[in-house]
């Protein structure tokens, strides 16, 4: 199954880290990514620019409404994501638990809606 791991963290405390501390976290991320890639479980993933760069788009009555800011102001902000392949929820949550930001922030694990594969024979 495919799972999206949404990585939420507290931006101010991320910003407050020293450069060395941040490099340490990046290194951990890289190690995890490489390990998942070698097992064919890493499908995609990235860090996101901070929410100050966010833009919200809505279309109402065929009118495009473009505004500044994230969709909702939350205690923690979406800071990145992993798209992974896992055999079940337990495997997905085990991977989520190894994401460095899980120790300070929150990882939301969401299964993807997978489209039907035509059956063979």
């Amino acid at each position, binding site marked *: *199954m495919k*799972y999206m791991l949404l990585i939420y963290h507290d931006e101010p405390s991320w910003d407050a880290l020293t450069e060395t501390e941040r490099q340490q976290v990046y290194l951990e991320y890289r190690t995890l990514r490489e390990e998942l890639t070698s097992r064919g479980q890493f499908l995609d993933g990235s860090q996101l620019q901070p929410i100050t760069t966010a833009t919200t788009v809505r279309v109402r009555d065929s009118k495009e409404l473009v505004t500044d800011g994230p969709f909702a102001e939350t205690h923690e902000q979406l800071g990145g994501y992993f798209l992974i392949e896992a*055999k*079940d*929820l*337990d495997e997905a949550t085990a991977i989520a638990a190894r994401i460095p930001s899980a120790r300070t922030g929150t990882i939301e694990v969401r299964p993807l809606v997978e*489209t*039907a594969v035509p*059956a063979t024979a």
Partner: protein
Amino acid sequence: MANTLEQVFREEYGRIIATLIRISGSFDLAEEALQEAFIAAVSKWEREGPPNNPGAWLTTVAHRKLLDALRRERTRTDKESELTYEASRLRQFVEPELFEDNVEYSDDRLRLIFTCCHPSLTREAQVALTLRTLGGLTTTEIAHAFLVPETTLAQRLVRAKQKIRLAGIPYEIPSLERIADRLAAVEAVIYLIFNEGYAASTGQNLIRNDLCAEAIRLGRVLCELLPDEPENLGLLALMLLQNSRREARVNKQGELVTLEEQDRSLWNASEIDEGVNLIQKALRLHRVGNYQLQAAIAAIHAEAKSADKTDWRQIVALYEELMRLTSSPIVALNHAAAVAMSEGFEKGLALIESIGADSALQNYYLFHASRADLLRRLHRHDEALVAYATALSLTTNEVEQNYIRRRIEEIQPQ
């Protein structure tokens, strides 16, 4: 006849459904197949009488119904992804030589328990699913027992089953590093079911009494499946020992009777024996835990011939052990009450007041009731009355309210 069927159904439900779910990968298909088998059994057994081994008969028929349904679905909707999932399970399944053979894989029930109590489901959903699938209770029965509308409960079950399927909650025994946590969740669900039946027991609502019986049955299943887990044994012992006092807890007027005042001849001796044996067995495994300690305390009460023969010193020691494991203020409260009995009311009261000083217990009825009881025993009636009044304002349970009113009447100046 109806009794045989119902009894077999109850006893075999969890066993059969667990295997059907593994084969089909679907809670719904498994439920339907078992339901059909049950209907087939009603008409056949009425005509011919029940078979020698009704459980095996039901299993066989349910398996056939399921395989038929899977084949039907497979040819009809080959293109649906869900079916490729179920079909892949079907391929792994070798159709068993049925009837007298043992087609149960005991691991299936264990898988089922862990899936039903998976931490990604809410506690309410865990309880409902466990009772529905493992316990074989109907949606109506569960809704009545938990005093929620049937539609709410049905919804809860649908959502839970949907989440299991869509989120990929595994149907397997958790890995070694997870099993302790997961087992704790299973035990918590079973104990919650028990307490739901026990706490509200006014002796009038039979379905609620059924909940205690059901929790005990589930506790037995857990012990049977994982007999070397001392907390499983402790939990079963605890439930049996508490349940043994059921008849004595409430008098003919429906009033709550405290442990001290209970007629001990009403206690169920066979449940006590079983509970005491279980807790001894558990403690010999030398991995002490919450349920074991609570059961050990209950066992000391159970073995005291009369209230004043209670070994309070040992109870105090067990509560101290329990306090090391949990930081629950309620445990601290019980500890203080035990200290009062073993080392004097004054000392117990001082302890209770120190616990109450800095905790959420101020809004807890039992805190005020316990404090009031000690004040009463110390003949400080004015203070006791105030504490009883506070306790009274904090509980909505009628039985508890009546108990406090009775106490107030006893010490009220005439």
